[in-house]
């Protein structure tokens, strides 16, 4: 928790922060195993790729025309599972005690 607080950067001029910097304010107990699994054969056929825009934690990023997924910063909202047009996301909560630790929200 203290590491995260230390990471809070005081802004001089108001400017947009990068998501990766905003996420520094959060705390996780990251599991070794991902709680979300992507079926890339389905994923590759998707044109709109809404997960890239609507996953609030930015777990889905575009590399070339392919979606690359990382679960570590997931905030466990469930959006990706609901919006995936290809039904390519096998979604579960992290194993007992793992994942995001909210303190203020």
């Amino acid at each position, binding site marked *: 928790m203290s590491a995260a607080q230390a990471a*809070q*950067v*005081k*802004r001089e001029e*108001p*400017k*947009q*922060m990068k*998501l990766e910097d*905003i*996420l520094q*304010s*959060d705390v996780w*107990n990251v599991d070794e195993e991902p709680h979300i699994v992507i079926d890339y054969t389905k994923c590759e056929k998707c044109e*709109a790729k*809404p997960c*890239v*825009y*609507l*996953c*609030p*934690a*930015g777990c889905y990023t575009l590399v070339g025309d392919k979606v690359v997924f990382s679960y570590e910063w997931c*905030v*466990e*909202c*469930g*959006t990706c*599972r*609901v*919006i995936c*047009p290809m039904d390519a996301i096998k*979604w*579960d*909560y*992290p*194993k*007992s*005690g*793992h*994942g*995001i*630790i*909210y*303190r*203020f*929200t």
Partner: protein
Amino acid sequence: MAQIPMKFDVVVVGAGPAGSAAAYLLAKKGFRTLLVDRGRGLGDKELFGGRVYAQPLRDVWPELDKEAPIQRWVTRERISVVSGDNVITVEYKAGSKKSFTALLPQLASWMSRKAEQAGAVFVNEVTVDELVVKDGKFVGVRSGSDVIEADVVIDAEGVNRLLLERAGIVERLKPDHIALGVKEVLRTGAPQLEAAFGIDSDEGVAWVVVGDVTRGVPGGGFIYTNKDTVSIGVVLHLRHALEAVEKGILKDHVSELVEGFRLHPFFRKLWKDATISEYGAHLTIEGGLKFSPPRLVYPGLLIVGDAAGFLLSTGVNYRGVDYAVYSGKLAAEAVEYARDHGGLTYENLKAYEEKVKGSFMYRDLIRHTAAEALMNNPELFSKLPGLMTKVLAGIYEQDYSVKTPFEAITEALTSEGVDLFSLISLAWLAVRGL
């Protein structure tokens, strides 16, 4: 298979407001109650917008006002319509204190601690994988290889309701009746906050914002003042957000919408020099009862809170935490009723459905459909803020000639490309909804 060698009367899944309220009342009524939650610590997985209506909570905890971690009582309601840099704001200074702002990890922790003090067994770090069914009746929960048996399971798992889906009770979540809320908690300090919002130390603000904060996607923004932090965020209807991405209308990441709101020239001075304390997101119900499972009672199972669809969203009022608590209370009362009427049978537990149908929540969920008319018309939703600000620009921003209200309105309609007919039909839908 390792088994916890104890059978409970009731196991409650999820220590949010709904589950904690149910577990608290059941333990108080003498039921051997187990409350499980997947978080490592109390309140770890809790996130909401920021405001709670107090009265339904007092029905469960009369000591609420004195003991609960209340941030600020809401004394001022503000609503803003934003179009570019133009903002229309209406403020209502309330005569009484009916709701308060809170940080949900703190409030839910208080509630689950109450349950524990009343005698419920609270076990954290338990992610329930499955509701256990035997001979057509729910008889417990499974986490990994552990099975915990109980006469009654209360499902308070929240909006994603994976367990109900796995049990075949509900279908996979669809974007239609779901919105995504993305939130930042900004640390400003109490004196700075009070000066910026123009409030006293015993006051609080709840602020709904519609318009450009969602880039025209139906939804809205919110601002809630806590003691020394401000909760801000953006809510997007997922069906419309999905369409906006597919059509190329929404080209930015959703976090950039929240950042755009934080940095909006009109709003940013409210949290000048603030640091971001936390960032998070949560799904919220927009369809009310359309989101509800086919039934709220199954043999051995009661469904409460978000999982049951108990959240009211009128576009101005959002009631989730109090609905959750109240449904937990009704479930606990139904279990007590069943015990006192011959046992925890399916027939007796159905009292829960009757109690829900007779409650203020159910009546309000049926009555309030006004917001839906607007939300289901994304085109008009996106044009309305521009239209409203243009009308006021016509009235207030003048050099020589003063426009009549009629001129201001017709000119705004023309410049925003809205025909009078669609405006009237929307007004009609809204009035009919009211």
